């Protein structure tokens, strides 16, 4: 059955990408953290700068015992990590890796991604509640309040881009930005697109629970937030989902503002193969930025977090949307 085979191949490629990327980024995160703190990090495993350490870490996680707390809710406790990872993996279906490969070329690509990631919220709530642990529940509550609040500036800034390009299809959004550095969306409607990008990037940091918005995990207050009780493979699923989400929001930033798979030099170094290179390296750049920020900035307080979302980012993105919309009509 070729139909089923096609579906399988299209769905396995993003999964393989996530797995390979997670191993790489695990190493990068530790190394960047170490260098920011003026130390070397691990140097021994595998030889060159401890490159095999993430693989060893993964093997360790795989072989660890599964501990399910006695008074936890067994069904939901098991279901939660699966739900969280499945929803961030499902979002990869609409990411155009290059001009010829996209797992599902949806007409409503970006809208689909925004919607499907809301399953993450439910998964986190499920994890927090089923663990039967105060830290977990508090972490889940914080996480959900944060994701729901920051969804508004995120969606508004995505909407601004959509007003400018006039399509929801991520492949078409990339297509429009073809032809070199200055046809990227970030340089359109100056300086409003730049502001939109900054809002999107800030809000997306909160969406993926990264510092300075890592209040849900806040190891100094909540142990580890919603995944306090998780061990072994289930914990690894949360971890994987977090890294997958980091690349997801970075990839969307690359597509919406920085041309996705299109080359910065117009026709030079363009093509399907180079498309993968450009898309992945643009995405990884923003992931790197997120990691750098994590080891540079302190954590916000809960009230500051809400203040930033509702009183700073949301009004600015509303004004942005209106100005870009008006400009797009007049043009």
């Amino acid at each position, binding site marked *: *059955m070729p*139909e*089923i085979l096609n*579906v399988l191949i299209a769905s396995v490629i993003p999964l393989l990408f996530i797995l390979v990327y997670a191993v790489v980024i695990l190493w990068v995160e530790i190394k960047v953290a170490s260098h920011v703190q003026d130390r070397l990090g691990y140097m021994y495993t595998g030889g060159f700068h401890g490159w095999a350490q993430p693989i060893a870490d993964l093997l360790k996680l795989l072989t660890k015992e599964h501990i399910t707390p006695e008074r936890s809710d067994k069904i*939901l406790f098991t279901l939660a990590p699966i739900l969280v990872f499945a929803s961030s993996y499902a979002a990869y279906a609409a990411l155009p890796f290059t001009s010829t490969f996209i797992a599902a070329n*949806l*007409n*409503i690509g970006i*809208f*689909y991604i*925004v*919607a*499907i990631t*809301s*399953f993450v*919220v*439910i998964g986190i*709530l*499920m994890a927090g*509640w089923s663990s039967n642990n105060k830290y977990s*529940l508090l972490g889940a*509550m914080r996480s*959900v309040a944060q994701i*729901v609040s920051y*969804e508004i500036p995120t969606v508004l800034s995505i909407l601004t881009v959509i007003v400018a390009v006039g399509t*929801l299809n991520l492949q078409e959004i990339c297509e429009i930005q073809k032809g070199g550095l200055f046809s990227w969306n970030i340089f359109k409607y100056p300086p409003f697109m730049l502001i939109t990008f900054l809002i999107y990037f800030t809000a997306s940091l909160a969406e993926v629970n990264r510092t300075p918005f890592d209040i849900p995990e806040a190891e100094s207050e909540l142990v580890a937030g919603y995944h306090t009780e998780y061990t072994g493979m289930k914990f690894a699923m949360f971890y994987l989902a977090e890294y997958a989400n980091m690349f997801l929001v970075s990839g969307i930033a690359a597509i919406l503002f920085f041309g996705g798979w299109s080359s910065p030099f117009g026709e030079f170094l363009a093509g399907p193969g180079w498309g993968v290179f450009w898309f992945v390296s643009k995405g990884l750049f923003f992931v790197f930025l997120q990691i750098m920020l994590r080891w540079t900035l302190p954590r916000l307080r809960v009230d500051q977090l809400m203040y930033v979302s509702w009183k700073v980012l949301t009004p600015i993105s509303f004004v942005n949307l209106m100005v870009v919309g008006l400009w797009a009509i007049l043009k």
Partner: protein
Amino acid sequence: MSLFDVAFYVLAFITVGSAIVVVSSRNIIYSAFALLFTFFGVAGLYVLLNADFIAVTQVLIYVGGILVLIIFGVMLTTKVFDVPVKTETLHVGPAIVVTGAIMGTLFGVILKTKWFDILNVQWDGTTKKIGERLMTDFLLPFEVASVVLLVALLGAVIIARRERVKS
């Protein structure tokens, strides 16, 4: 059986199965989480009917908004999630009348509608058409809906404020 049929039966099973859990579960938090799969199944059925925009909107609003609100409500109401929910049979007579009437109406609609096979119809994106209709023919209902939402928002703010003044 084609891939389409398999997808339909799987989604229909998810929708109906989880809906049964929603009404029959004794633990209210299970009902709330089972609702997630009902919404997911319904969204999947919309996708099979080529209504992509409606499907995604269904997920965004019901899963991302309403379900989160329900679960929050259940969790924040102290001790509610420890109380077993009554699922015994009450008021059998009136219930039969009401459900019978609803079932009759649904059957009437099913029999009267002229069905067509969606596999034979080629549809392109629905988003643009929905947008155009909302901004032309259905502008008034659209605006009225937004006013209703605004009123609800203001009401929520007023309720939240009043409590703070008292304490």
